[in-house]
């Protein structure tokens, strides 16, 4: 199993990195793809982490937009709110009534207070350099981020390490009894983490970061948190 593990996700990332190594990309993308990946045997608690969340007006990066993004960093196992960022993103596409209901983000609000999409993503890429990236249900964040990278840098995918607290929870649920509700708030409840209002990108990012720390304790106790286990769980 370890052989499979070593051959698949990380090998692919390394291979992809080798392929693009000859190219030079503009910053901050260049730093992001040229900073070496973490060793899979390291204790995940010692690694710098960025936890992010996007609020979007739909699930398809081809047609939908990121409305807001929030992120926070974890250093030495501690969530540092000084690193917390929350950006509303200006968008030409109108927000449909439904998504406005969920996110409480009105088009006028976004256009007035919002940041240009390119600047927001650049800030994010800069913050991601040298860190493991975590999201709850990372397929959305990954999809929108890679779409943006593809549009602006013509790079088909981003060779970085993602962890997914939703997947980790599903992996954990094989150990414990199955629980079908994988929404962030429900999963947090299992860990007795406090109720936070959902659908605010930064709040969700912080909520995810707390969940991640709780999961580390649940999975590993006081033993070293092996990164390879987390990667494997997140890849399923």
């Amino acid at each position, binding site marked *: 199993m370890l052989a499979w593990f070593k051959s698949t996700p990380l090998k692919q990332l390394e291979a992809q990195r080798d392929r693009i190594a000859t190219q030079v990309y503009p910053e901050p993308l260049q730093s992001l793809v040229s900073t070496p990946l973490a060793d899979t045997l390291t204790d995940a608690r010692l690694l710098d982490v960025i936890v992010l969340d996007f609020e979007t007006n739909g699930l398809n990066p081809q047609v939908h937009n990121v409305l807001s993004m929030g992120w926070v960093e974890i250093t030495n196992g501690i969530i540092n709110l000084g690193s*917390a960022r929350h950006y509303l993103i200006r968008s030409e596409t109108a927000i449909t009534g439904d998504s406005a209901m969920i996110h409480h983000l009105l088009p006028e609000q976004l256009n007035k207070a919002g940041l240009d999409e390119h600047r927001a993503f650049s800030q994010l890429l800069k913050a991601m350099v040298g860190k493991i990236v975590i999201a709850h249900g990372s397929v959305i964040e990954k999809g929108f981020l890679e779409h943006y990278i593809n549009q602006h840098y013509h790079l088909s995918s981003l060779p970085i390490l993602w962890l997914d607290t939703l997947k980790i929870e599903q992996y954990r649920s094989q150990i414990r009894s199955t629980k079908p509700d994988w929404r962030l708030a429900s999963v947090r409840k299992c860990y007795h*983490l406090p109720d936070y209002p959902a659908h605010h990108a930064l709040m969700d990012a912080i909520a995810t970061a707390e969940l991640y720390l709780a999961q580390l304790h649940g999975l590993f106790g006081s033993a070293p948190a092996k990164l390879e286990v987390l990667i494997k769980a997140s890849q399923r």
Partner: protein
Amino acid sequence: MMDSTLLPNIVAFLGAIEPFNQLPNAVLDSIAINMEIQFLGKGESLAPLLTQKQNLFIIRSGVIEQRLPDGSLRSRLGEKDIFGFSLENENYQANALENSLIYRFDYAALLHCVADYPIVTEQLALSANRRLQSSVNVQWSEGEKGLFFKSVKEVASTRIVQVPPSMTIQEVARLMRHETGCSCAVIVDNSSLNNTLVGMVTDKDMTKRVVADAVDVTLPITHVMTEHPWTVGNDELVLSAVHVMMKHNIQNVPVLDANKQVVGLITPQLLVQKHSVQAVFLIEKIGRCQSLEELTALALERQAIFEAMAEANLPSHLIGQVLTMIYDAFTQRLIYIAEKALGPIPCRYVWLAAGSHARSEIHLLSDQDNALVLENNATDSDRVYFNHFAMYVCKGLAECGYALCTGRFMAATPKWCQPLNVWLQYYRKWANNPEYDMLLSLTVFLEIRPLAGDNTLFDILEKQRVVQVKGNTRLISALVRNALQTRPPLGIFNNLVLEKEGKNGKRLNIKKAAIGHLVDLARIYALHDGGEMLATEARLRFALDHQSINESSYQDLSGTYQYMMQLRYSHHLRCLRSGKPLSNTLNPDHFGSFSRQHLKDAFRIVSGFQDAVKMKFGA
């Protein structure tokens, strides 16, 4: 560009916790972005800090216990509780009993954020004693009604010594001596037309700045005066005068009129006296009552006076003293009425107040502790008379709101209505054989004070009491053993040490939890060093003066005692206001996080004191 509130849920959480609830959202925001979040799994400990930084922690969810280096429990903390690591003096380990989410603040950065809010700064102090003290002060300054909302001119003293700057120190001191009840002089520049206030001296200044430094008393007063003293305006509220006193730690505040002329003086004694007027009136009325019915009618007035005092948050020892004076008056008048009802007194006697009544630490729930001492040649029929007499007085007191003593430590109990010889024997027996069942009687009667009758009987008894107690190491160690039998609760609010109280659920008994302990321990120190004062605070002061405890222990203990007494008085006030029966038991759900913190501080201080007593007296 960021939102106006970057971290709405964290700001909302902080905004619901004392003392952060006194801060505007903008400040909370700046606090929140400096915050760190930590997850402690069940069984994990907070890593010891490697840096010199001090941190403050708030528990967002979960349960944390603190343990001292020797493994003993320091306290147990839950959601919204605040704790701090102070490297200099608080050395303990914090362990998670459940998975816990903890908000961590850099203490220096936090203080910087709240710098404009001194009350919050005080409440975030790292030392337990300072926190307790600040809470006593804060409550005092927050008095809602009563005296504090009167204008300064209504209460200011107009007796004030005014002197010109050229006057010598000695002349000023003489003037101050002549003006009775005045402890300070103001220096007014009469060379200018507008008589401006230029300085102030107090009698303390005369000691500290003149006598202590052997200053030449023929020098002008300007050499030793305080220049530009703090003042209050005639029309300002008493509250602001008190605020000025506390903020600058001063006792005397000159009062100025609209033209900046000195017209009076505000002193703490004055504030207390104005309140005592009501009590003086009541005592006078009690002294004129001719029947039990008239007396019982005044019981409500006693309650009104208590409410006024508690509302104004007078220092607890003053409330205790005023209530004691009223209690004395009721007792003395009942004795007078009993004599009238039962016929003339057949022999000499002395009526004693004992226990908390003797210590002048009375509150509305105080029950009766009293005794009768008769002259030695009292006949059987004399004793029958005094049995009736005591019954009459004790029942009368009960009707006036002083509950009968459940331990039957009352003159109405034949055992406690005895000739002097028997009483002398009692003390001898207690002192020589301080066994457990004797100890309770002994502690009640270790404090006695004569209220009526023949004081020579009391003097003989008191002499015997002192002889038997002084230097009696067996007695002291019996008292120590007894005092250490129960410990204050360190883990309150996890239902560990609360009492079940009928349908009310779990309650905290503050008398058992802390007040009783402090009274016991202060008594031990005073007896050990031969102090004959009765009041707990005076005893603590005595222990400090005899170097039995150091300055910081003294501050801790007297601060804790005052805090607990104040807590009891304000709880009684709340009961009265809400029409509920008075009790010494508090519902912990009604405590804010900071009150809980104060209580835990208090219990910790008491517990530490018990350990110190154990070490010192080796029980």
